[in-house]
C-alpha cells in the first residue's frame, strides 16, 4: 500500500508539472496566427503512416536512418509497457496487462528485444555525437547548451533502456516457471544473476521515475520531437513543395486598386502586418515546427546557400523562432503589448540570411518531419519588402521592370514575338 501511495503522489507531481508546461505552451500558441485550414484527413493519415510510422524520410540516409527507425519503433512498443507500469503502480499488481494473452506475449517480447536494440542504437548515437566530427551537428545556431541537451537526452534514453532491461532480467530471475509474457533476451541473461526482489524494485522505480522526469524534460528540450513528430507530420504541407500560399488580405487591396477604388473605405479592420517580423506573426504551424525540430541539420546540409558558404542555415530559422518565442512570447503572455525593441527578423535572422535562399526546397525535401523552411523565409522577405521596403538593388530593378513593362528585364511588351523572326 505504501508503494501505491508513494507512486500515486509521484504521478500526481509529474502530471502537475506537465499540466503547467502545457498551459504555458497553449498560451504561447495563442500568440500565433491561424494557418491554412488542414482538411484532407484521409490523406493526412496516410502521410503520417508513411512518414512518421514508416520513417520513410529518415531512411533517406539508410544506415543511420535504420538505427533511428529501430529506436522509434522500439519506443512505440515500450510505451505500451510503460502504460502497464503506471497501472501496476496505482493498483499494486504486477504485470497487470498479462491477461491479454497472446498480445501480451507479443508486447513483452518485442519490448524486451527493443530495449536492447534501442540501447545499442543510443550508444551508437552517443559515439557519433561525442567522437565523430559530423558536419551537420555543428553550426552557429547550435550553442554549447544545445549540444549538452542532445547528449543529456541520449543519456536519459540509455538509462531508460538499462533500467528496463534490468527490470526484465530480475523479473525473469525471480519468477521461474510462472512468467507473464516472453522475454527473449533478458531470459538469457537472467540465469547469470542472483534473484533479488530489491534489484527488481530498484530497476522498476528507476525506470518509471526516469520516464516521469523524461516526459517533463522533453518539452524544454530539442528532443520534444519524441512527442511532436507524429502530429507534426500529420499537420504538414500536402501541397507541392514549391507552392507558396497567397496573402489573402493583399487580394482585397489589389482588386480595389485594379477596379480604380484604391481609396475606398475598407471597413474598420486594423491594418494587419504583411509577412513575418516577429513571433506574433508566425502561424501556429510554424511554431509547432520550431518545437518539433530536432536540430538534425539534414536541411542545412543540403542547402545550396549554406554549402557555398553563405550565412543562411535553414535549421537556424526554426531554432531562432523557438528561442525568440521563449524570449518574447513568455513576456507577452503577461503583457500583450510587451516590446523589447527587438524582433525575430533583423535581430535574430539577418537580411543577408533571408536573401540567400533560392527556394530550391532541398531543406523541406530532406526534413524527416516535413517542416517547410522556404515558405517561412519568404514570409520574412514579405515583411522586409512590403513593410520596410528593403530589398537588394537588383531585386528593386526587377520589381520596377515588371511594373513598367511586364517582364523582369527591361524589354518592351511590343517585342514579345521577336523570337519568332530571328
Amino acid at each position: 500500500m505504501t508503494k501505491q501511495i508513494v507512486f500515486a503522489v509521484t504521478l500526481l507531481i509529474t502530471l502537475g508539472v506537465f499540466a503547467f508546461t502545457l498551459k504555458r505552451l497553449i498560451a504561447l500558441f495563442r500568440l500565433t496566427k491561424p494557418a491554412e485550414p488542414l482538411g484532407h484527413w484521409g490523406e493526412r493519415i496516410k502521410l503520417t503512416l508513411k512518414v512518421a510510422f514508416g520513417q520513410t524520410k529518415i531512411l533517406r540516409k539508410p544506415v543511420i536512418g535504420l538505427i533511428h527507425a529501430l529506436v522509434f519503433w522500439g519506443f512505440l512498443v515500450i510505451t505500451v509497457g510503460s502504460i502497464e507500469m503506471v497501472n501496476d503502480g496505482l493498483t499494486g499488481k504486477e504485470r497487470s496487462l498479462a491477461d491479454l494473452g497472446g498480445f501480451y506475449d507479443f508486447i513483452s517480447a518485442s519490448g524486451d528485444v527493443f530495449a536492447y536494440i534501442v540501447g545499442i542504437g543510443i550508444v551508437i548515437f552517443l559515439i557519433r555525437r561525442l567522437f565523430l566530427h559530423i558536419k551537420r551537428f555543428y553550426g552557429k545556431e547550435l550553442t554549447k547548451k544545445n549540444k549538452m541537451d542532445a547528449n543529456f537526452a541520449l543519456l536519459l534514453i540509455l538509462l531508460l533502456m538499462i533500467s528496463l532491461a534490468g527490470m526484465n532480467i530480475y523479473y525473469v530471475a525471480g519468477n521461474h516457471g510462472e512468467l507473464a509474457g516472453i522475454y527473449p533476451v533478458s531470459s538469457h541473461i537472467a540465469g547469470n544473476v542472483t534473484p533479488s526482489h530489491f534489484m527488481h524494485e530498484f530497476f522498476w522505480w528507476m525506470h518509471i521515475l526516469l520516464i516521469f522526469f523524461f516526459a517533463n524534460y522533453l518539452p524544454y528540450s530539442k528532443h520534444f520531437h519524441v512527442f511532436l513528430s507524429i502530429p507534426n507530420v500529420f499537420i504538414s504541407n500536402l501541397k507541392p513543395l514549391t507552392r507558396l500560399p497567397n496573402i489573402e488580405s493583399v487580394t482585397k487591396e489589389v482588386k480595389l486598386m485594379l477596379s480604380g477604388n484604391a481609396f475606398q473605405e475598407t471597413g474598420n479592420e486594423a491594418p494587419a502586418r504583411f509577412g513575418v517580423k516577429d513571433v506574433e506573426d508566425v502561424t501556429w504551424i510554424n511554431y509547432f515546427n520550431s518545437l518539433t525540430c530536432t536540430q538534425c541539420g539534414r536541411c542545412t546540409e543540403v542547402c545550396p546557400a549554406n554549402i557555398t558558404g553563405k550565412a543562411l542555415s535553414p535549421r537556424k530559422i526554426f531554432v531562432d523562432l523557438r528561442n525568440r518565442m521563449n524570449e518574447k512570447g513568455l513576456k507577452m503572455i503577461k503583457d500583450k503589448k510587451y516590446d523589447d525593441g527587438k524582433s525575430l527578423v533583423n535581430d535574430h535572422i539577418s537580411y543577408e540570411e533571408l536573401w540567400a535562399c533560392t527556394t530550391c526546397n532541398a531543406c523541406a525535401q530532406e526534413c524527416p518531419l516535413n517542416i517547410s523552411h522556404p515558405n517561412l523565409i519568404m514570409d520574412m522577405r514579405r515583411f522586409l519588402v512590403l513593410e520596410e521596403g528593403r530589398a537588394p538593388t537588383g531585386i528593386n530593378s526587377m520589381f520596377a521592370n515588371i511594373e513598367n513593362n511586364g517582364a523582369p528585364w527591361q524589354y518592351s511588351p511590343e517585342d514579345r514575338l521577336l523570337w519568332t523572326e530571328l
Partner: protein
Amino acid sequence: MSKIEVPVMADLAAQGKKPEYLYWVGCAGAFDDRYQKVTRSFTKILNHCKVDYAVLGKEESCTGDPAKRAGNEMLFQMQALQNIEVLNGYEVKKIVCTCPHCYNILKNEYGELGGNYEVVHYTTFLENLMDEGKLNVEKSSFKNKKVTYHDPCYLGRGNKIYDAPRNLIKTMDVDLVEMKRSKSKALCCGAGGAQMFKEAEKGDKEIYEERTEDVLESKAEIVATACPFCMTMLTDGIKFKDKQEEVKNLDIAEMIADSLGL
C-alpha cells in the same frame, strides 16, 4: 534563321477560333538571347506535331513569380489578376509552359485567385505526344552521346516531375548518366527564388560553380536542362570553368527538335 509561324490568340479569336492549348512562353522564353532558341525549338515541335495551340504574344505578361518569391505579394497579385483576366477572356482551359517557374505558379498559385487551368510542363506534354504516337524521334542527333540531366527545383522537388524529362532524353538513344546529386537530391543551379536578379550573398563560391562541378564530374558531353534559369546558370558555370569544348548545355526541346531535323 527564318520566321516561324506561331498562332497568336488574338488573331485566332478574331476568326472565332479557340485553340486547345495556350503555350505560355514566359519572359525568358521571349527575351533571353540563349533561351529564345529553346522557345523556337519547342514551337517547331508543336507545329511538327500539328498541335492546336496559340501564344498570347504582346498580351502575355510576367506571371509575377520573381516578385512573389522576392516578397512583393502586391506586385505578384497585380500581375496575376491581370493575367487571369486575359486568360479567362480567351476562355483558356489548358496551358503548356516551357519555364518551370511559370508552370509552378500557374498550376499551384493562380487557382485561388480565380485562374483555374490544366497546366502542363512541356516535358510531360511531349512525353504524352510520344505515348500517343504523335511524336517519334527516329533519327537521334545525339546517338550514343553521354548526356546528364539537371533537375530544375521547381519541376523536380517542387512538382515531382523526374521521369518525363528522362524518358524524353532516353528516346534519343543516348547514354544517360546521373550526377551524384540528382532527382529529389539534385542541387539547385542557384537562380531560383529571384536569385537570378540579384548578386549572390557573400560566401565561398557561387552555387552555379558547385553545380557545374557535379556536371563535370559526371563526364557527360551534354548537360540537358528544362528551365531557362538553370540554362543561364549552367552555361555560365561551364564558361567560368572554361570547359566549353568538353561539355555543352542544351535544353531537351532543342535536342528533340534537332533530332527531328527541325
